[in-house]
């Protein structure tokens, strides 16, 4: 990238986050999660590890869940990103997944929660025909939680499925 005087500058990334457009200069090595947390001040997405295991950093990029610690910011150029901050409606109404997490006590310390909720939404979206408890447990392989023991997270996701697909869950 060059500036108008011909000198070299950092790469620039343009993306939409939670419906708002941003254009930012970033170092090439900047991770998407660093851009979100430090560049855009969206600290809801968390960093819990350095080996891409824990899933605390999961966001949606162009509608699919993705570990933002494992993507460079420049790779998100032109993308539509949704973070945990962008889930609730403008009037504050919670997304059904957020509601069900609260209803079923699916969070304790809250640190894994943003990534867990984003992964859960994608999991439900990908299973319009139905989602068994077994499928939920395996679908959460990429998200670690140390507090809850996962039991209530699974319940919350199962409860969110009919709310998100607008129909009654067929018995698996």
């Amino acid at each position: 990238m060059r500036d108008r005087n011909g000198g070299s500058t950092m790469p620039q990334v343009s993306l939409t986050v939670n419906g708002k457009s941003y254009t930012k200069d970033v170092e090439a090595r900047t991770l998407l999660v660093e851009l979100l947390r430090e560049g855009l001040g969206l600290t809801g997405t968390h960093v819990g590890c350095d080996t891409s295991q824990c899933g605390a950093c999961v966001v949606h990029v162009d509608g699919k869940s993705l570990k933002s610690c494992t993507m460079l910011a420049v790779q998100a150029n032109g993308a539509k990103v949704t973070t945990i901050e962008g889930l609730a409606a403008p009037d504050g109404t919670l997304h059904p997944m957020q509601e069900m997490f609260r209803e079923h006590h699916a969070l304790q310390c809250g640190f894994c929660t943003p990534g867990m909720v984003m992964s859960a939404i994608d999991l439900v979206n990908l299973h319009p025909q139905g989602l068994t408890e077994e499928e939920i447990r395996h679908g959460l392989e990429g998200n670690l939680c140390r507090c809850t023991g996962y039991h209530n997270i699974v319940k919350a996701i199962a409860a969110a499925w009919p709310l998100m697909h607008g129909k009654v869950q067929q018995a698996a």
Partner: protein
Amino acid sequence: MGFEGIGAAVRRKEDRRFLSGRGNYTDDINRPGQLHAVIRRSDRPHARLLRVDTAAAAAAPGVVAVYTGADLDADNVGGVPCGWQIHNKDGSPMAEPKHPVLAVGRVRHVGDPVAVVIAETRQQAKNAAELLEIDYEDLPAAATVRDAIAPGAPALHDDAPGNLCYDWHIGDAAAVDQAFAQAKWRVKLDLLNNRLVPNAMEPRAAIGDFDPSSGDFTLYTTSQNPHVIRLLMGAFVLHIPEHKLRVVAPDVGGGFGSKIYHYAEEAIVTWAAGKLNKPIKWTADRSESFMSDAHGRDHDSTAEMAVAEDGKFLALRVRTLCNMGAYLSTFAPCVPTYLYATLLAGCYTTPAIYAEVKAVFTNTVPVDAYRGAGRPEATFLLERLMDVIAHDTGIDRVELRRKNFIPRDAFPYQTPVALQYDSGDYFTTLDVALKDAGWADFPARRAEAARKGKLRGIGISTYLEACGIAPSAVVGSLGARAGLYEVANVRVHPTGSVTVFTGAHSHGQGHETTFAQLVADQLGVPIANVDVVHGDTGKIPFGMGTYGSRSLAVGGSAMVKAMDKIVAKGKRIAAHLMEASVNDIEFKDGKFTVAGTDKSKALAEISLAAYVPHNYPIEELEPGLDETAFYDPKNFTYPGGCHVCEVEIDRETGSVEVVRFTAVDDIGRVINPMIVEGQVQGGLAQGIGQALMENAVYDGQGQLVTGSFMDYTMPRAHDIPLGLKVATENTMCTHNPLGSKGVGEVGAIGSPPAVINAVVDALRDYGVRHLDMPATPQKIWSIIQSNTPRMAAE
């Protein structure tokens, strides 16, 4: 609004911000003008630290300062203090070598902090840290306790000969020896308790700040107990008087004990902030956490039980070697002594017990309390021993336990190892658990699994634990250097809403909701009108924080006492306003009533009168409605219960699946059953993790092999059984006003032996008497490969 008081499954108030990404964790906080600190750590387990050349690092882009141990020494910075002094058998105090904030002259574990680089960005600090030139002279290392106490082992500290921290004991050796001499059976078991990394999902972080105009220091830190940090760091490390030091523990993403301790990084950022007049921010990487957060467990024990012909336990003898790591962490010495050996009666009437504990320094990360802290170690020992006794004597493993249970009418029950239990009913939790777990029908499930080529086993653990820590004078006499009371300041505002300032800290436990429920219950104030404030020494009187399942038993009791004072004062105000005698005033459901009449005043009317004292007994009573209570518990509390685990082993792979888990726990008074279930479920996951997959491994040279989530197996959602049942059968604590015993740790305490007992049961045709944790697929597969199964004689 439905019922919100004690017993209601109220949904949590704090969830809103956590679910919306508006939590305020330490790494989320950014102070104007802040600089970033990166720590360079030793990459070798034991070496002389000869030279740290900071020149290249200091000249790197964006670098503001580089500091080493020499800089801290020059400024008279103290070592990281230990909060508990254990004495040896001969009465002499334990070895207490200095724990420097930054290494000087020697590094003693992989991860030992050597230097700190401070730069404008974190990336600049990281880059510069790699430019530090460090000369080490490697020394031989000892990573296990057995290696460290062997003759000729490398000495870690000049003032800890033989790498021994202490050689401690409890109980009656003579009585135990005598019982062994006469016993029909002497059952011996060697067992380990595997070393674990707590791995709260939020890595540790700290921000130090200094305001030169006021001379005030502020530390933001991922801590379970900010006042304790203020005291330890202020008094012993940085010599900052407490009134000039504020410690804030904001939202904290899990602790499990690992965030109790005062860590070097807290002192480093605070000290550096004072030097540079800038906020200094440090956040750990996960692999950095693996080599700097305190690890847990790591016991090597021999247990022997003397058993009478009829199966009654006559005496228990235990010898344990435990690992302190390279330096003493804040509570480390008390975990394998007063939180472990005093639990060796369990729920049994064993009349004579003698335990010896040797604590050893090794070239590993310091070891300290991790969920359960000593009680999982005691429970694993006892409950494995139960099944081994059953195996060796032929007595049924359930009947053996039942036969030795402390009877229902024996409370208060004085154990031979100092503790006196106030209440408990081990028979009921056992019976309910057996029923809920389908114990009686298990043989049919085992046979069905065998037809599919699987090995199915069932195991049980009947445990007791001691928590609600603790009576200050008792722990003081045992070497604690702090009190263990708790504080609550209950402030009723003029218009009737309430703020509770608590010394307890919530890092997942839901206190903002459950403590509000206590106020709803006792003062009749809806929880929407109650705010619970925790984690800031600038706002809250001195409290000891949250660990050891103490928040409700001790912190909640302090709240009850403070609210008692509120009600007492309110009655005097109400009596004045309603022109009645204070003895005729009753308080119920938020109203002060003149007995036998319909004259009443709401709490909000009373509080307004208190703050606008025009019609008020001003000669006898001060204005205001704001009371503080410090509560020092009279005893520990004693939750207990029964856990039943059912596993299925795949013979081809050795993998162990937990197919059912049933927990029936006695935790005293339940405030919020939803929170209680969540605590038990979370604890069970950690217990299953310890039993089947978690292990912090060092190689023979002291290198940390399991240094990230790639190698350290954390339990995931599919490791937790679909068939998970959690229930309570409660007996009340007799000595605190709530009757609560605490529930935070029971899940992690009772479960590991239930899992291993099930695995051993599944392998019963393979001649397995014992196996240590974790029961990994490789371990199980090897057992299956190398043992010929006996044909089942059924």
